């Protein structure tokens, strides 16, 4: 085994990612190569030091509501989709009612009716989307009171 290959295998050995055969081959190389052996000892020491670095502990109750919060977000996500769809349908129906005379007038050209219809529908979708975004950001953004 060449030193280049041994260097990569050292990482695998350090991180418990090697097979028995690879470990054996690496050990044979380390037994015969003083330079790699010295390097290996330094890496082992470094690994020991990083593994001794412990994150600050957190209270036992920390995880109590974790799943409930994720689950609620999932449920509310579906709620927002339904809210958006319902709002778009209702607003589109309202707009149609308001402009019923225009849409039912046979003298108005069809292309104009399609254009006005798409324009109104687009505006409604944008309105609902912005409304939803504002409501969601307001709910989750704790920095909303910070002046820009």
């Amino acid at each position: 085994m060449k030193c280049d290959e041994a260097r990569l295998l050292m990482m695998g050995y350090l991180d418990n990612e090697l097979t028995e055969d690879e470990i054996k081959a690496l050990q044979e190389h380390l037994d015969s190569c003083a330079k790699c052996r010295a390097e290996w000892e330094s890496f082992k020491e470094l690994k020991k030091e990083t593994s001794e670095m412990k994150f600050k502990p957190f209270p036992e109750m920390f995880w109590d509501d974790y799943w409930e919060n994720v689950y609620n977000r999932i449920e509310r996500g579906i709620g927002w989709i339904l809210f958006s769809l319902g709002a778009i349908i209702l607003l589109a129906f309202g707009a149609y009612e308001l402009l019923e005379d225009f849409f039912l007038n046979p003298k108005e050209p069809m292309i104009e009716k399609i254009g006005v219809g798409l324009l109104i529908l687009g505006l409604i979708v944008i309105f609902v989307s912005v409304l939803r975004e504002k409501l969601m950001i307001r709910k989750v953004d704790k920095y909303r009171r910070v002046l820009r």
Partner: protein
Amino acid sequence: MDAKISDKEAIDACLNGNKEMYRYIMERYKERAYYLALMFTKNSEDALDLSQEAFYRAYRSLKDYDTSRPFYSWFYRILKNLCINFTNRHKRLVRMDDYVQTATLDLGEKPDELFEQNERSAIVWRGLKKLDDKDREIILMKDFNDFSYQEMADALGIPIGSVMSRLYYARKRLLKILQNFKGDL
């Protein structure tokens, strides 16, 4: 929770409408997700919130997830993007910087910000801070967030051989920095 249920089984059940099965995934990865977010935000409350949001977003995108790949490496990208957006947005709002800096995986401004106080740990912490972002990221993924090589390869989009090679050079550079510290003492 039944540890025998695999990620794939749980995710397939979720895709068939059984939302409760997502709990298996979340229980399995919540601590790693939290600590990963903590390394971006340096704040426990934000890390908790962002890791939960990442689980929600991952659930929403489950249909795009390839179950033949490790879940955590896919989830890592979602959480990392959320943390970067959050950190940059936060920086803008509180006017700490005149420019938007790209947030990176890091260990806080002081050694005791995230870690239990320990003299030797503080030295390693200083060494890690001196590394460039790429070297630091790969060491933190492995040594502080328990990534497997397969997970790292998937998360970073590189072969496992490159993961080992990047780890080798990153650790080598860290060792050199630590040796210089000893020389300074």
